[in-house]
């Protein structure tokens, strides 16, 4: 007689929504398209690493999607895709920088529903090389009013010298989470570093006393000081348990 398997299922886990928010305005085509090319390469090559990390993370189901913005904004992957099924579709650049529109579209996704009631903090990675051309503030306010956006780990990658770091810092809420990518190598490093936020958020790894600096200057994985992410105070219904 063969032994029966033990009963029960997998360890319960929570969804972790990861968003790539990518500036595809015309300036990303500068330097003969190298900027957008480097970005495509960098994100594509970080996907297997993210999948490998997710495989070893029993606490999270990592779900990824991409939003591009230029003149207007659109979902490259409209529905959340499990990381093991996610493939990077190369983005092309052209148009203006409607960042506010992008914020509004992310906000729509972080509203409950479609967002689930129980999850890990979402991760929003905004990559931009220029200042917004639309009314970004209205979109950002809509976004940051949402409990899930407040709870999100928000990281920005600032490409080149024309990026508006003040706007990016308004988005992240913390200037240290605006990573500087002034050359292709730095862009690759920053994107790699930001991608490890998925693991850091669900916190399965050791918590070192000495955190790696948030400059992305080494290969050290991201060690976010999660305590710097605020606990929503009076503006959340006290009956909610956050």
């Amino acid at each position: 007689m063969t032994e029966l398997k033990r009963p029960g299922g997998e360890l319960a886990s929570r969804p972790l929504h990861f968003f790539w928010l990518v500036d595809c305005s015309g300036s990303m085509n500068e330097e003969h398209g190298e900027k957008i090319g480097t970005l495509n390469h960098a994100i594509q090559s970080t996907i297997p690493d993210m999948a490998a990390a997710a495989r070893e993370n029993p606490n999270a189901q990592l779900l990824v999607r991409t939003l591009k913005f230029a003149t207007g904004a659109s979902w490259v992957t409209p529905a959340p895709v499990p990381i093991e099924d996610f493939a990077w579709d190369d983005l092309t650049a052209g148009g203006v920088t409607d960042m506010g529109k992008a914020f509004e579209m992310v906000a729509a996704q972080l509203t409950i529903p479609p967002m689930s009631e129980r999850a890990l903090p979402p991760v929003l990675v905004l990559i931009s090389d220029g200042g917004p051309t639309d009314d970004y503030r209205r979109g950002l306010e809509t976004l940051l009013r949402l409990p899930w956006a407040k709870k999100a780990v928000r990281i920005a990658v600032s490409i080149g010298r024309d990026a508006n770091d003040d706007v990016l810092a308004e988005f992240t809420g913390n200037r240290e989470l605006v990573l500087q990518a002034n050359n292709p190598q730095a862009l690759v490093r920053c994107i790699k570093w930001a991608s490890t936020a998925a693991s850091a958020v669900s916190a399965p790894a050791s918590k070192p006393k000495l955190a790696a600096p948030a400059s992305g200057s080494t290969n050290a994985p991201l060690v976010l000081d999660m305590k710097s992410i605020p606990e929503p105070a009076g503006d959340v219904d006290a009956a909610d348990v956050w």
Partner: protein
Amino acid sequence: MNMEGMLKTGTVLTAQSGSAYRVCAYLGAGTQGEVYEVECGGKHSAVKWYFPQMATRTQREILENLLMKGSPNESFLWPEDLITGGPGGGLGYVMPLRPKEFRGIVDLMKRRAEPSFAMLCRIAFNLTKGYGMLHAKGLSYRDISFGNVSFNPATGAVLIGDNDNVSASGRDDAAVYGTPRFMAPEIVTGREKPSRNTDLYSLAVLLFYMFMLGHPLEGKLEADIRCMDIHALNRLFGTHPVFIFDPNDTSNRPVEGYQDNVLIFWELYPQSLRDLFIQSFTVGLTAPNKRVTEKQWLYEIANMMSCLITCPRCGAEVFFDAEKAARGETHVCWSCRRAVPYPPSLICGGDRALLPLGAKLYSHHLTGNYDMDTVAGEVVANPSDPRLLGIRNLTGDNWTYIRADGRQIPVAPGRSAAIAKDAKINFGARTGEFR
């Protein structure tokens, strides 16, 4: 592809022993450094190479101490050689490579590795024994969690890695305070530093995860939390921990639909194991020196391994529960829900082993030495009447069989003694009784 870390393939690292290790492949990165496969004289090993900010003098001193002390037992991927200098003046150490057949605890959690209950007990036993050996050397591990333990699903052998934070119990010198969900409440709240007693908490969490496929503090309080962020983690595992099966506090019971595994598994184990978890996560939450010790776990798990009943109808493994048996209650198969008969037992010291045909006795049963690897006896059928079972002496020593009428008969190595009610066997260190 970013498959290159700090060290390029082909780099030669000269260790303190004088051995030269050639970097073969990048294996991965953690929070403190990167791990490479290296080769020296045809032998392959692993090297952990620290990120510059982690390559501290304190880390080097910890490694030197570990090299001097030597590995507690065969269950550790212990540092074997130190590398200082090298490219960029860095720091690293050599350790054995984890063999390919070993799997991680995450594989267990995601059901990619599916050991039997018997093998699961053996893995848990070997892990607990390893940590016990480490603590016996005055060291603490500091980061008992999913990531740094692996096991061989075929043999139950375990390998404990990431030993470079191991240091003297209570000293605040290692780079790591632990992993969320595994850290003791007094570490989460910042009141204490890692020690042997905080290791005992993490060990209880790891064992609970392995046996129950859930967390001992994740019940209704976890289910009610929408966003599982650092604040929620700190509350659940630090400031307001409540055991999901606390007999005196029902506020954090598991919620069906969210925490089904713990509801399924909790009832399958003997009360004696449940009692150890209750101790760990009620009184043990606030009294670090009242946590369950390795010996208590080993004693219990050895009994569980020795008292599994195979359901004769469906083949499911059912744990014998001595308390249930003492109350005269029937054991019921968790799978087919029918009554399961169980064979006679050998009670030896405080240990019990059920004696179905083919069952093995280990050195631990005869001596209480926690050796569950060395086979000491086996239940065999009497060749002249296969319905009669006996225990074959597989040790090199003589046993003495004491019949119910008091008559004593020697049992030489290779001979077998009948399993009979009220008879006993004197094994030398201990005497076993049949029940």
